[in-house]
Each structure stands twice: as structure tokens, then as C-alpha cells.
């Protein structure tokens, strides 16, 4: 590089930096499933962020914050990458956030270091995402985090032979590995492991296969959305529930908006998860009250709203720490080791993995005051991502 081009580059960088520093509106690009079968979860990103803004105002420090939403629609890495590029180049966002699906988050990751942009992952739950860039922080959960307590619970409840049925993509494979390692490590047997294609809607043959395997417990993970309801119904209607086969899952299969559709037949299904809408704490009550005041429907609240609410907290902190300048490393450093009480319970950001540590709760579907909820009965305190941290 000769002297001339060096100085042009330096000028350009200077221009870019002063440009962002003097601009008083910091833009945050949120990529979420705003339409299509998974639209509910994108809507929840917005509900969570809106709740944070309603409580803490549109200013972070001295800077106005503006959230710009884009629709990732489905597991479509190419589209998500294009959306992220558009947000970075055209809208000049300083932060990226959201992302429902793992493949989409993986596609965005390479852009972060090029553009020095932090990404707050508010859902995508494959452990390795945070390893793809030092600028990724995650406020949702991982499959390992939620699955290890599930395996421990199954052991404690006396399960001997388990059939694992997971969606055939990143998080599903993670869930299968996490359950297998924990369960077999303590002497249990996994008699069947089915990986189900993502587009499956008819689960009857899979239930029959599980039944024939002689398993006493099923462990499952499917991404929240249309397939989970079909899976639970097939489990009930093919007589596995009546036949005494227990269903264990991460909470993705029994999200609160799906419970009325599953109906009373779902009572007793066990799950381990980091957030229940019915979680009993004053932080959660305040969070739900804010959502309701903002016109949100409490029957539509899911885990993605609380991940987005906490994600917005991190973004505000990052903007304050960097005083509105584009400095991804400083921004990410500012939130490492952060501790606070979220609507889901006490949480912290693990400084080495940049993933959230949180309580995982054992819940069962129960009917309380005529409404089906996930009732928490046991707490696994301060759980890390078990794939990334040993304790």
C-alpha cells in the first residue's frame, strides 16, 4: 500500500468514525421472523424491545436509539446475510440483534469482524454460534444449557431407556448430543435416536417407531412453531401418553401460546427451560405489565420477548460504554461479567463465552385457574452453556 492510498484510507476511516460519533441517533438492526410460520417469535422480539424502551426511554446515555426491523422469515442463510449487509451499508446500523434461526446467525457472523459490529443473538441456540466471532453476545439460551438439566431429571425420575427425537439441524443435533452424553454418562441407555427433517408435519410414523423401540421416556427438541404442536398431538393420539411413555423436552415444545391448542391432554408434560411466562417474581410481573400497557397480548408472550428485553439492556449498556462510537471490542467488553435480575431470574454474561448464565427450571404443564401454564417445580441455579463451559 503506497503512501497516498494509505492517507486516503486513514481519511476515510476518520470520516467514518466522526460520522458515527457526531450522529446523535444510534441505529440497531433487528433481524427476526416477522412473517411466515415463525412470525410469533419475531413479534416477540419487538414486544421485548418495546417493553425495554417503554421503561427506559429512547435515549441510552446522551444518544437516541432507533431499532430497525428486518424479516428473516425462515431458515434462509443467504437472505439473512443480505439483510445484515443492507442494514450495515445502507442503514449504517452500529449494532445487530435478533436472529431466530441458527443457520441465519452463522451466515451473519463473518460480517461482524469486517464491519466491527456487535451482534446480540436473541434466540438462535446452537452453542458454537458465539465462537464464530468475538463480537457475538447471546441473551437467549442454548440447547446444552437447557438439555443437561432435562437428562438429570430423567435419571432422577427413574428413566432407563430413552428415545431421542430431534429436528435435523444445528440445535437438534446439539440437544441430542447433550442428552446422550449426560444420560449415558450416568448409566442410562438411549435406545433410539431419530433425527426428523425440519419440514415434517405428520409425526405418526415417528411415534410408532419410538413405541416399537420400547423406550420408557421420550426426549425431544423441535423449534417452537407449527411442528411442535403436531409432535405433541401425535404423542397423545398415538397412545404413547396413555401407554405410560413419558415426554421430556426443552420448553420449546410447550411454549405458552401453543398450550391451549394442545389442550388438557398435555397436562403433565415435563420440560426444562429458562423462562416461563408464569414465572413468579416481581421483575416478571413488571415486565408483563409493561407489555400489556404497550398493547401486547399476554397470551402471545414467549421466551424470545424476554431474550430481546435483556438484549436491549445490553445494547443500551454498550452504547453508554462507547459513548455512541463504533468500537465493537469496547462495547462487548463492557457487558462481559454483567449481572442483573431478568424477568426470568438472576442472570449474568459469562466473560469467556459471552453467553448468558441463568437458572433453568423444571416445569410441568398444569391447569391453574382454568388456564394451562408451565408450572415451575425445581430450579437448576446458574447454568452455563455446558458445551462451552465445564461448570
Amino acid at each position, binding site marked *: 500500500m503506497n503512501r497516498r492510498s494509505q492517507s486516503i484510507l486513514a481519511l476515510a476511516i476518520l470520516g467514518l468514525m466522526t460520522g458515527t460519533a457526531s450522529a446523535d441517533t444510534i441505529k440497531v438492526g433487528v433481524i427476526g421472523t416477522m412473517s411466515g410460520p415463525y412470525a410469533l417469535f419475531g413479534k416477540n422480539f419487538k414486544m421485548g424491545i418495546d417493553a425495554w424502551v417503554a421503561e427506559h426511554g429512547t435515549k441510552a446515555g446522551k444518544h437516541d436509539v432507533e431499532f430497525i426491523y428486518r424479516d428473516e422469515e425462515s431458515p434462509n442463510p443467504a437472505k439473512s446475510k443480505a439483510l445484515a449487509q443492507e442494514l450495515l451499508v445502507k442503514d449504517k446500523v452500529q449494532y445487530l440483534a435478533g436472529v431466530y434461526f441458527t443457520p441465519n446467525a452463522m451466515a451473519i457472523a463473518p460480517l461482524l469482524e469486517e464491519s466491527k459490529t456487535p451482534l446480540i443473538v436473541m434466540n438462535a441456540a446452537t452453542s458454537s454460534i458465539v465462537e464464530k466471532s468475538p463480537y457475538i453476545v447471546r441473551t437467549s439460551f442454548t440447547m446444552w444449557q437447557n438439555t443437561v438439566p432435562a437428562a438429570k431429571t430423567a435419571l432422577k425420575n427413574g428413566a432407563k431407556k430413552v428415545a431421542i427425537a430431534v429436528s435435523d439441524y444445528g440445535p437438534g443435533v446439539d440437544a441430542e448430543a447433550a442428552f446422550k452424553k449426560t444420560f449415558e454418562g450416568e448409566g442410562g441407555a438411549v435406545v433410539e435416536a431419530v433425527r426428523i427433517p425440519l419440514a415434517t408435519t405428520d409425526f405418526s410414523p415417528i411415534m410408532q417407531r419410538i413405541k*416399537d423401540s420400547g423406550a420408557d421416556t421420550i426426549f425431544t427438541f423441535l423449534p417452537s412453531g407449527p411442528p411442535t404442536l403436531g409432535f405433541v398431538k401425535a404423542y397423545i393420539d398415538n397412545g404413547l401418553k396413555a401407554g405410560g411413555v413419558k415426554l421430556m423436552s426443552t420448553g420449546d415444545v410447550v411454549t405458552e401460546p401453543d398450550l391451549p391448542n394442545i389442550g388438557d391432554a398435555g397436562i403433565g408434560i415435563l420440560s426444562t427451560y429458562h423462562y416461563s411466562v408464569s414465572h413468579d417474581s416481581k421483575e416478571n410481573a413488571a415486565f408483563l405489565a409493561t407489555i400489556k400497557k404497550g398493547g401486547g397480548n399476554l397470551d402471545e408472550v414467549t421466551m424470545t420477548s424476554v431474550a430481546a428485553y435483556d438484549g436491549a439492556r445490553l445494547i443500551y449498556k454498550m452504547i453508554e460504554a462507547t459513548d455512541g462510537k463504533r468500537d465493537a471490542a469496547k462495547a462487548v467488553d463492557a457487558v462481559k461479567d454483567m449481572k442483573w435480575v431478568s424477568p426470568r431470574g438472576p442472570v449474568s454474561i459469562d466473560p469467556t463465552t459471552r453467553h448468558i448464565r441463568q437458572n433453568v427450571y423444571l416445569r410441568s404443564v398444569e391447569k391453574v385457574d382454568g388456564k394451562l401454564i408451565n408450572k415451575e417445580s425445581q430450579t437448576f441455579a446458574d447454568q452455563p452453556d455446558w458445551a462451552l463451559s465445564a461448570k
Partner: protein
Amino acid sequence: MRTVFSIMIDAVAYGMVLFIISIGLSIMMGLMRVVNLAHGAFAMIGGYLASYAIRDLHVHYSVAILMAVVGTIIVSIPFEILLYRRIYRKSDPLIQVLMTIGITFFIIGIVNFIFGPSLKSIPLPQTLSGPLDIGFRMLPTHRIFVIACGVVTALALWLLIEKTEFGIKLRASVDHSGMADALGIRTEIIYAVTFALAIGLGAFGGVVGAEILPIEPFYALRYMVTFLVVVSVGGAGSILGALSASLLLGLADTTGKYLAPEFGDFFFYLSVIVVVFLFPHGLFGRSHA
């Protein structure tokens, strides 16, 4: 042996859903030579109407099916008069495909706007929900109902086409529409009635099949290929063809899912390739010169 029975019964249930929805499409392609890509969209409208009728109007499942079928036919009337009537039997396939895919996107947009983007369940009445013990395994009661619906639909259509005066006129119009016209058969009325019948069957299939193919705004696109495949494997316009294609594909798909779920749709499309290779016009199709 038990496993074989298990697979068979799931396969027949899935096949029957495919049959009820696809037979309408098959009739339209066979008779009017219209490749109606919007067929799934009309099935979806049926599903949404039934869901709305049960969940918001609290009517019985049977009434909801009736409302869905009649409602969907009413919705389809303007489409028939303004658009479909112009492309029966004459237009080139490109115009048909562009027009009907346009209608599909239009319906997806409208449905998304009115009912929202989430999945809509169609609650089953007590008698049809829950498991049923059929000796060697437990089966969702609803599957038995679906199989019965498929058998009744196939029989009723066969009687209608083979044994009634309408059927005679219909077959005459298919074989030689010009001659039928000249003999005083009002072919445009035959076409309109057949269109309504095809759409009504689609809506019926959309409702009773909702447990297996759940109703959501992208239903129309998601299953479009599946329905077209049934028609091309069975041969356009043939009841027996659609029935055997549905059962064959249902069997391939279910067996695949049971024995090797990680292969996904591989066995489904493998059997499609084999059949179309051996029978280019479908199992029971006739070549249209």
C-alpha cells in the same frame, strides 16, 4: 407383521388426505386442462373458514365442514367468472401458470392480513379426538375418520361420473367439447359446476386433513408441489389414478419416515421419478393429442 400393519394404516390415512385434496385438482386438469396452482390456496381458505367457525362461532365440527366447503365455493365464484372462465381448454400453459400462481400469492397475502401469520388449529369434536385401540396398536381416532372420508369421496365421485346424467355430459365434454356443444350440452355450465365441485373438494380436504397438513398462511405454497405430483403420478382426470397415486405416495413417504427418517422426502420423490419414468402420462392417464 405388526410393523407392516402400522405403516400401512398411517400410509392409508396420509394417502387419503392427499387424495381428497388432489382429486379436485386432477378433475380440473383432466377436464378443463387448467393447471390450477391456486388449488392449495382454496384448500387453505377452507381450513381457515372451518377454524374460524369452530373457534369463534362455536359451531359443531360437521357444520364447520359444511360452512367451509360452501364458503370456499362462494369465495371462488368471482375468480371463476372473472378469470378461470377465460382459460378453460385453450390458453397456453404459461398463461395458466402465471395467472394461478398470482392468485395463490394474492390469497396468501389476504389470508395473512385477515387471520394473522400463525398456525390455526381446527379443534376436533370429542368423538374424533384422542387415541383409539384397534387391536394391534393405538391410532388417532381422527385417522379412521379421514380414511372413511376418502373412501366415501372416491365412491361418490365414481357414482357421479359413471352413473348420472351429469356424469354423461361431463364425460362427453371431456372427450369432445365441440361435439358436445353442438349436441346442445351447455358446456360452460358443466365447467362452472365442475369448477365448484373441484374447489369444494379441495376445501373439504383442507379441513379434514388439517391434522396432517396444518393450516397456516404458506400452506398454499408449501404443499403445492405435493398435490401436483399426485396428479401427475396418477394421471390427470382419473379418479382411480388419483386414488392409487395418493396411496402409493403416502406409502412411500410413511415407510421412508418410519424406517429412515433422516432421508426426509427422498423416498417420496424417488417413487415419483420411477412412476413418471415408466408411465409418462401417469398411472391411469391418457395422452391428450
